[in-house]
C-alpha cells in the first residue's frame, strides 16, 4: 500500500445527500407547530425553520437560517450528535400514547443541514453580511468553534475582530481534534472562510501565552477579549508513566493526522499492535484513524461497560465495523516496556461494575488478581482533555478552578475580569462543537452590551 493510498483514506469525509434525497427527507418533516427540534438545538440553529424553508423550495433562505443562527452550521451538520439533540425531539418518529417507542425514525436533520449549506455554496450563495455599525475592536483567543462563533457574531454587528491562533491553521478542534474523514479540511476551510468574509482577521502561529498576555490585550487597543483556547492537554491513564516510545495522547495523534506528521504515522503504525484507551468520541476517532494506518491490530480498552461508553452509539458501531476489538471492563494499570524503554504491552486489570458513582453510572471495581498483559507496540490515550498547566498564566486575574477551567457566567460568558469573556471547552470542560458555538453567540451579545454601555 503506497503512502498516497493510505493518505487518501484520511482526505475526505463521506459525501453528503443529493438534492433528490434531501427533498424526500425534508418531506418527512411534519412541520410541527412548536418545532421541538429547534428548541433542542443548543446554538438555536432553528431546524424547524430551515426544513420548512427547504420544503417550500426556499433553498437559499434555508441556508440563511442555518448560517445566520449558527455560523458553523455546516460543521455542526456534520459533527453534531443530532440523535440526542434535535433529532431526539423529532415528531416524525411518530410516538404516541399507543406507540411510545414510535413507529418511524426522525428526520435526518444533521444531514439536511449539511446538504443545505453545501447546496448554497454550490450556487454561490453567501447569506452572511455585516449588518450593524458597531465600533470597537475585539480580540478573540483561539480559532476553535467558540472563538469563530463569537468573532462572526461580533463582526456581523460591525466590530473589528482579530482572532489569535496558536497553531498554523485556524479551526481548533474542527481541524486538529476531529479526524478529517469525519469532517475534512476543505469543508472546515469553507466554514472559516465564511467567518473571514465578515472581515474577521485570523492571525495564526500567534499564541497568547506570555504571562498576562490575554489581559494585556485590553490595554493594547482591544475593547474586549474573548477566551476560547480549548483544552489541548490530555489526561493520562497511568500516572507518572514518563516518556515512553509508542505512547501517544489522542490530542497529539489526531493533530498528527492533520499535519506534516502523517507520513511518519504511516511508517510508525504499519503492522503494529495498537491499543486505544477510552470510551468517548475521541477514542472512536482514534480507533478509526489507527485502523486506516494498516496496523496488525487495534484493541480498544475501556474500564466500564459497552453501554456506559460516552461515545455515540453510531460512533461505537462505526468503530466496530472498522474492525476494532473492544476490551471492555479492563482498567490499564501500567505500561510494559523492554530494556530500551520501548513499549511492548499494556498491563490491564479486569473490572466489574459496582455501586453508582458521582456520574450516576455504576463504578468499575478492579477484580483482584485478574491482571493481564495486552501486547501493544503503540498506545493512544483518549481519556479526556484538560487545560495545559501554563495556560492560565496568560490571564492571571481571571478566576479558574482547580482543573484550570475558567469561571464564566452561563448566560453571558463574563469572567471575573470586566472585559474578558470566555466560552467553549475552557469553561465547560470537554463539550460539543454546537455548545461552543452557543457560548460564542452569547458572549458576543454580552460583549456588545458591555461596549455599548461604555464598559
Amino acid at each position, binding site marked *: 500500500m503506497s503512502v498516497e493510498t493510505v493518505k487518501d483514506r484520511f482526505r475526505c469525509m463521506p459525501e453528503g445527500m443529493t438534492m*433528490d434525497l434531501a*427533498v*424526500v427527507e425534508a*418531506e418527512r418533516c*411534519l*412541520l*410541527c*407547530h*412548536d418545532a*421541538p427540534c429547534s428548541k433542542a438545538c443548543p446554538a438555536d440553529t432553528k431546524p424547524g425553520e430551515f426544513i420548512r424553508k427547504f*420544503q417550500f423550495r426556499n433553498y437559499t433562505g434555508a441556508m440563511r437560517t442555518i448560517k445566520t443562527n449558527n455560523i458553523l452550521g455546516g460543521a455542526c451538520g456534520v459533527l453534531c450528535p443530532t440523535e440526542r439533540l434535535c433529532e431526539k425531539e423529532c*415528531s*416524525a*418518529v*411518530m*410516538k*404516541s*400514547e*399507543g*406507540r411510545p417507542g414510535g413507529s418511524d425514525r426522525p428526520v435526518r436533520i444533521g444531514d439536511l443541514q449539511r446538504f443545505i449549506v453545501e447546496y448554497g455554496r454550490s450556487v454561490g450563495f453567501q447569506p452572511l453580511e455585516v449588518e450593524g455599525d458597531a465600533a470597537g475592536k475585539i480580540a478573540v483567543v483561539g480559532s476553535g468553534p467558540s472563538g469563530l462563533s463569537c468573532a462572526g457574531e461580533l463582526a456581523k454587528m460591525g466590530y473589528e475582530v482579530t482572532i489569535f491562533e496558536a497553531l498554523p491553521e485556524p479551526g481548533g478542534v474542527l481541524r486538529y481534534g476531529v479526524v478529517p474523514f469525519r469532517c475534512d479540511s476543505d469543508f472546515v476551510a469553507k466554514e472559516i472562510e465564511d467567518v473571514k468574509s465578515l472581515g474577521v482577521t485570523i492571525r495564526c502561529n500567534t499564541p497568547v501565552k506570555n504571562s498576562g498576555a490575554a489581559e494585556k490585550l485590553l490595554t493594547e487597543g482591544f475593547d474586549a477579549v474573548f477566551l476560547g483556547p480549548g483544552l489541548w492537554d490530555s489526561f493520562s491513564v497511568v500516572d507518572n508513566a514518563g516518556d515512553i516510545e509508542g505512547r501517544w495522547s489522542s490530542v497529539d495523534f489526531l493533530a498528527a493526522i492533520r499535519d506534516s506528521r502523517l507520513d511518519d504515522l504511516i511508517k510508525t503504525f504499519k503492522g503494529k499492535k495498537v491499543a486505544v484507551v477510552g470510551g468517548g468520541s475521541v477514542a472512536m476517532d482514534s480507533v478509526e484513524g489507527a485502523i486506516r494506518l494498516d496496523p496488525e491490530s487495534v484493541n480498544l480498552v475501556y474500564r466500564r461497560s459497552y453501554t456506559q461508553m460516552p461515545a455515540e452509539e453510531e460512533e461505537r458501531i462505526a468503530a466496530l465495523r472498522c474492525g476494532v476489538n473492544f476490551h471492555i471492563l479492563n482498567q490499564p494499570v501500567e505500561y510494559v516496556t523492554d530494556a530500551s524503554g520501548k513499549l511492548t504491552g499494556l498491563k490491564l486489570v479486569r473490572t466489574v461494575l459496582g455501586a453508582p458513582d458521582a456520574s450516576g453510572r455504576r463504578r468499575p471495581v478492579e477484580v483482584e488478581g485478574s491482571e493481564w498483559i495486552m501486547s501493544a507496540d503503540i498506545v493512544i490515550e483518549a481519556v479526556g482533555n484538560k487545560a495545559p498547566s501554563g495556560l492560565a498564566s496568560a490571564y492571571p486575574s481571571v478566576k479558574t478552578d482547580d482543573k484550570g477551567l475558567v469561571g464564566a457566567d452561563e448566560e453571558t460568558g463574563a469572567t471575573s475580569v470586566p472585559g474578558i469573556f470566555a466560552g467553549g471547552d475552557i469553561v465547560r470542560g470537554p463539550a460539543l462543537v454546537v455548545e461552543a458555538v452557543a457560548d460564542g453567540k452569547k458572549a458576543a451579545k454580552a460583549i456588545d452590551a458591555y461596549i455599548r454601555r461604555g464598559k
Partner: protein
Amino acid sequence: MDKKKKPDVGIEFCGQKFINPFLLSSSPVSNSAEMVEMAFDYGWAGVVYKTLNSDRINIDHPSPRMNSRNYGSRKLMTVQNVEQISDRPLKDNLLDLLYLKKKYPDRKLIYSIMGFEEDEWTYLAKISEDNGADMLELNFSCPHMTIEGSGHDAGKDFAAVEKYTEAVKKAVGIPIIAKMTPNITDVVPVAMAAKEGGADAISAINTVSGISDIDFDTFIAKPNIHGHAAISGTSGPGMRPIGLRFIADMAKDENLKLPLSGMGGIETWVDALEYILVGASTLQVTTGIMHYGYVIVQDMVEGLQDWMASKGYDRLQDLVGKALPTLGRTDLFDLDRQGVAEYDLSRCVGCGQCYTVCTESGGQALEWDTAARRPKLIEEKCLSCMLCSFVCPVSGLISYKEMPAAWQRQKTAVFGKDLENELKWEPYAGIGGKDGFTC
C-alpha cells in the same frame, strides 16, 4: 373444496366483451405493435392505438416533446406534452395492428383516427375497419395539433363533431367512440353532437390545456421547442378530479345515455374504481404507464378483484355508475345535520399541524397544550371543515362526528373590541329597507 371463484372484472362495452376494463390510451404508450404486445402480455384488455394519420400530411413531432411537473419528491404529478398523432406510415401501423389481431384474438383493438377533412375521416374509418379494427375512436380532442382546425379545435365545434362522426358512421359498421376534450365549459352538448352523428360511445378526457414549468433563465415554458412553447396537453394524477367530473357529467345526462370510456390520471385500482363508480365502463391509461410501466395493470386487476371479493361483489359491470345517484345537487344537502371533528388523541404524535390549520384556515376551535404537545378541541367552534384531518400525519386519528339536532355552533364574534368605538359601519337603505337586504 371448490376453488374460490375470482370476481369478474370483465366489462361489456358497445356490445363487445373486454377481459378487464383496462386499455392503453391512444398515445406514445400505444405507438407500435412491439409496445402493445408487451402491454398485452402484462394483461391489458385492449388498446386504443396511437392516432392513425392518412399519410396525406407529414407528421413531425416537436423536439423535445414532453415535460414533467413534480410535486415535491413525487415526479410526474402532471405531464405536459406536445406530441402529435402517429408519425408512422398508415400501412406500417395497419400491419402492426393486424399482427396484434392475429396474435391476441381475445384483446380489443380500437383504432384512433384523426382526419383534417370529411373525406379523410371516411377514408381512415374504412381502411381501419377493413384492417382489423374492433372499434374506432375519433380523436376530436388533441389540444396541441400543429395543424389548424384539427384536434380539439374540431372537438369544440359541435357541428364539426357531428359532421365527422356522421361521415364515419356512414362508412363503417363497427362501434364508434368519440373522444372528448375537457377544454370546454360543458362537455354534454359536444357528446350529444357526437351521438347525433352516430357515435356509439364517448371517451374522455383528452389532455387538459395547461402549462407546466417555466424556465427562469429564458422565461420559456417547457417543453421548450427551441425558443417556443405552447399551451398544451396536461395529463396525469393531478388531472384526475377533472376527468372524473367529465365522466360523471355525461353519465348523469338523461339524454346522452352512451357507454363511457374514462381516463385521466388512472394509476391504481382505487382510481380505476372511482371512474367506474361515476359511470365509466372501460378505462384508459397513458401517464401511469409512462411513469411506472405496463405492469401497473396487474395491480389494478388484482386490487379490484380483492376489494370486490372482500365486499362480496361478483361483477365489476354491476358497479358502473354506483356513485351517481347521490352525486350532483347541492340543494339536496340536509343543512340541519351538523357535526364536528373528533380526535383520538391516544394516537396523536404532537406535531400540531391541526392547530395551525384550524387557527389559520378553520374556526379557531383548537387550543394547544404547550406542555403535553396536544390539541384540545372546543367543539362549539368547530366548523367541521375537517381540514385538520387532512393535514394530520396519522390517518384516521381525526374523524367526523355528527352532533345532536339541538346542538348549535358558536357564531364567529366580531373582532377588534379594542377599536370598537372607532369602527362605524355604513348601512345602505337604497335597496331593501332600513333593516338591510332582508325581504
